[in-house]
């Protein structure tokens, strides 16, 4: 009997997992997960720059001006989706956009930028994803807004859309200004 019940039990376990997934998404609503970092200082990091691997950028180097940290990877299809949005945002000059190249091959990342355009003021590389743990990054794309004093103001999980920029990011920027 157990043998014949097994498929059903496996399915029930699967259904519970999927149900939890749906409810997590529902609670998340606009995908803006409350991050423990919100309102707190950004974590310390020191990561190399994509085009100049010997140059290392740390948290202190970015202080003084707010910036948008956009986590992406050349392997990530959803990053392609949000790329025009990031590009528009960077072109508008409202905010400095820093690319965070996550778990990626440097060559692939460079090719990707050559292909779709490079909107980033600077691209830092986290090849093994270790620094990402401190940021609480669990995938790409994700986007953080960090103010001039190095505080994390806003976080978004998933591809940015024009609506999200309009309804969430721009009010945050206005608050900063």
């Amino acid at each position, binding site marked *: *009997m157990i043998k*014949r*019940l097994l*498929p*059903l039990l496996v*399915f*029930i376990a*699967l*259904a519970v*997992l*999927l*149900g*939890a*997934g*749906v*409810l*997590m*998404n*529902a609670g998340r609503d606009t995908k803006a997960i409350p991050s423990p970092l919100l309102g707190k200082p950004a974590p310390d990091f020191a990561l190399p720059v994509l085009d100049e691997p010997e140059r290392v950028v740390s948290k202190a180097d970015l202080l003084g001006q707010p910036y948008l940290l956009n986590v992406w990877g050349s*392997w990530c*299809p*959803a990053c*392609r*989706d949000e790329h*025009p949005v990031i590009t*528009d945002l960077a072109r508008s000059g409202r905010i400095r956009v820093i690319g965070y190249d996550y*778990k990626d091959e440097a060559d692939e990342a*460079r*090719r990707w930028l*050559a*292909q*779709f*355009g*490079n909107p980033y003021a600077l691209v830092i590389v986290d090849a093994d*994803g270790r620094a*990402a*743990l401190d940021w609480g*990054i*669990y*995938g790409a794309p994700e986007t953080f807004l960090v103010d001039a004093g190095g505080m994390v103001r806003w976080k978004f999980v*998933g*591809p940015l859309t024009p609506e999200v920029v309009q309804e969430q990011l721009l009010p945050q920027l206005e608050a900063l200004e």
Partner: protein
Amino acid sequence: MLPELGLASLALALMLALALASLPLAGAQFGRPLWMATARPLAYALLIAVVVSYGLLTWAFVAQDFSVEYVARNSNSLLPLHYRFTAVWSAHEGSLLLWILILAFWTALVARFSRSLPAPVLARVLSVLGKVAVGFLAFILFTSNPFTRLLPEAAEGHDMNPLLQDPGMIFHPPLLYTGYVGFAVAFAFAVAALLDGRMDARWVRWSRPWTNVAWAFLTLGIALGSFWAYYELGWGGWWFWDPVENASFMPWLVGAALLHSQAVTEKRGSFRGWTLLLAIAAFSLSLLGTFLVRSGVITSVHAFASDPGRGLFILAFLGIVIGGSLALYALRAPRGETGKPFAPVSRETFLLLNNLLLSAATAMILLGTLYPLLAEALDLGKISVGPPYFGLLFTILMVPLVLLVPFGPLSRWQREQLGQPLRWLAPWAGLAVLAAVLAWFAWPNGTGKTAFGILGAAWVAGGTLRFVWNRLRSGSRGPRFTAEMVGMSLAHFGIAVFVAGVLLTESTSIERDVAAAPGTSFELRGYTFEFRGAEHYQGPNYQADRGTIVVSRDGRPITTMHPEKRAYASGGQVMTEAALDGALHRDLYVAMGEPLDGSGSWALRLYVKPWIRLIWLGGLLMALGGFVVTFDRRFRRPLGEGTPA
């Protein structure tokens, strides 16, 4: 007025589906012939109602009725006419309607081509299909109505997703859905057999042709989707292990296992419970795929609709359909194996191994697809599952499968001396190794991977040829070739071609990124790519830069290529239209990057991809094999009630 009529017709379809789901089934359970006889007419009526509804939505697109919200969101007045037809299924609501349309077609086809079925069986099968239709119709009507009006009417629409404005998109979703939904028929036969309590070989014989056709359509759909991603995403890859691709690949793998286990059950009576379970699993995974794509549980390029309400609805539906059928299975599945016994070396054993490997691959993909979700739910930390995981594990599971392919057909049912197929295959193994060694040393730019590709392909092709040769020599007993054997051989040749394509392409492709000023040339694998410059032009609903690249080899011009970079008028989405020059032995592929400065220079991405066409050719052969099998005369012979297994 017309959109309201479409909605009314959809509501009517729900009523008809409810009747179909209950009345014939009750007739079969209580032995009322009159109730059972309603199954056929109800199936036809359901089809008509759904066709009317689908036709009216299409008309709203063609006539550009922007007072319908769905039309306003997914098309605009600049959209060319042929894309207005495909825009119908370019987003959530319409693609569900397409699902229902195809389900209604399958249901009507079962009703039409089922003269040899006893009335209670037909009544149960159509009833189960009716239940599936009820679920989807309710889903559309209560959460995703495509006919919702927009007040006030929009003056202009938004646009169809530019990624989908492509000829490949005309055929990809219908083919894929035809495959997905087709598994509903095998599922319905399995559930009907469980309800009936007669799980002998008969239900399997009836459902085999349907399973084959569904699987063949799914193969075509996946192959076309892969080809579309290859040239439309501008990235040169043909498979990304994206959750949505995985969602279509899992039912395909289980469907392939089902084809083989159905053959065993039908001919030998073995694997009865297993075949039932696979029939349930194939359709369950199709539904799960729909859930993953539609619920937004897993983010992906394809997941264009995410809405928790919809997610919960589909989940509840999944729970009823899959949970219900598995509970039925737990209660009713045959106790103990009743088929003919078989020895450790026999065709049954080889097919069992095939089933185990395909199921393990499915489980592996399911785990990898859901792992991020699991890790998030259990707060296990952040581990990403990407192509390396899938690529490695899939290869580990497929190597033994490729090794075993030739053994199944060459072994006898029930008992075989391992020496016999080995003797037949030894010369082919030798030839395959020889070819691989030659490839290792002599293949232009080849690597070890190239040699393995040749080895695997030659082995499978050789083993299949040996089978063909054995049949040709077989004298008196029975027909030399049944359609079933021809189809099987074609599909196995397809595997050989596919294996060769994957490994040759992966090992010998080359790509290069260049900064090209007008007039400069670049050399890649003996091909000279000369960039002649780019010009700006205005398309129907986009603006574009169109490059011109002349490709020559040894001074002789081969082709002129025009990659494009398009900015769509609405939404401002930028699309890369890669230029392709395809031939069987190599594809030349050029994609435009960014303009580099004011002087007309561009970043270009150049590829030479040898033998990549074999990947899709292999898929075509497999699909063709699936179709050919259904012409086997055994499926047309009417079966008496008492025919033994």
